[in-house]
């Protein structure tokens, strides 16, 4: 009985110690967002989507285009700058940047480039994919600690802020 009591006490103490350690070691950092092969190549056209994490702004003719980090591209009709209205959202997994020439969007889709025709901006049309031309960035944009990439969990399509315990990767 006494033995069990001591064992219990030891366990408790150990538990407390572990949780203390946990609090101590937690730091702000980044962890990878993984996507599986199955859906990284799906480029979908939608009429509109809420703006979540705008990363890039772009002006093309009367359109204001905004990249939503890791998600895709919002197209707003900006002919009335006092009232821009979203005409379409192009969902492109992992998208961070793009450029437009002659009604063609050139955008990154993780390691690929995708080409989307916006001759009718409210009805974008997927045109082509050039495979494997961009390297996969195995670390976040910001410097500091991050959770190491585990390739077996899929392709990295973005990074999110998190609390890390004893991070092993730093930038």
């Amino acid at each position, binding site marked *: 009985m006494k033995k069990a009591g001591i064992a219990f006490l030891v366990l408790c103490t150990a538990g407390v110690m572990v949780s203390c350690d946990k609090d101590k070691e937690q730091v702000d950092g980044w962890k990878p967002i993984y996507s599986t092969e199955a859906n990284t190549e799906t480029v979908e056209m939608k009429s509109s989507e809420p703006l979540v994490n705008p990363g890039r702004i772009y002006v093309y003719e009367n359109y204001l285009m*905004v990249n939503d980090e890791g998600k895709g591209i919002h197209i707003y009709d900006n002919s009335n700058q*006092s009232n821009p209205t979203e005409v379409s959202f192009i969902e492109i997994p992992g998208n961070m940047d793009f450029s437009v*020439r*002659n009604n063609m969007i050139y955008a990154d889709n993780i390691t690929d480039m995708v*080409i989307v025709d916006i001759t009718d901006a409210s009805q974008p049309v997927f045109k082509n994919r050039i495979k494997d031309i961009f*390297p996969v960035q195995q670390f976040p944009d910001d410097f500091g600690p991050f959770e190491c990439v585990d390739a077996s969990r899929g392709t990295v399509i973005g990074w999110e802020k998190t609390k890390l315990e004893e991070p092993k990767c730093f930038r």
Partner: protein
Amino acid sequence: MKKLRLIFAGAFVLGALASCEKEEVTTNEEEVQVMPTTKDQASSGYGGSLSQFTIVDNYLYTIDYRTLNIFLLDDAENPAMTESIDMGVGMETVFAENGRLFIGANDGVHIFDISDPRSPQEVCEFEHVTSCDPVVANDNYAFATLRGGTECGGSLSQLDIIDISDLDNPQLAGEQFLMNPYGLGLSNVDPNILYVCDGYTGLKAFDISTTNSWNVDMVMEKGDIDALDVISDADNNLIVLTRGGIYQYDATNPVELVEKSVIPVQ
């Protein structure tokens, strides 16, 4: 070095000669002469200073943490990569101006000549401390923001004004203390106004006509937005990317902005 430059000049003359000869050959075919007109009719857009993609004429330039890639867009649906340059350094932003590419990298500003658009040649690098640094430029000056702090590796946060009138010898011409800088952009309305997005401290405007003094004068400070990037558009329209959404202002008076609309982050 001098020898090298001489060789370069020699090569340049040869190059010019070569292209002259080419032109003579094509003068008979008048249809070929129409080409530049179709090129002019092509329209491309423009992004803010944080862009990693930029189009100049019929070429797309992209940068990432490792490489500068060049794509020919003549076949619009089938871009063809003409070159991929391993820079060996993390790159953040690319900005094209006056036949040059200005690349903001972790170790400084790299300037490339793109007179041969397929094959950019690095003409100079202005090194600075490790930081995040978008860059914009006019003919004589490049303006780069350096964001320090744990996120970016350095400790300084400032605006660097770099005299690039002699590309062989870029010189630091001025500095301005900043708090949390991100993108920046020259005003379309007044070429002497430079907008700087200073993160949580807001959007600031500086008078860059005073570049002969070491510091530039701040002529506007808009502290109610968390500013990240800016485009000074046609129609005196100023577009500002913030953490709270996309703001548009009437910038007829570039230092008295009048809000027109907000696309809020949800």
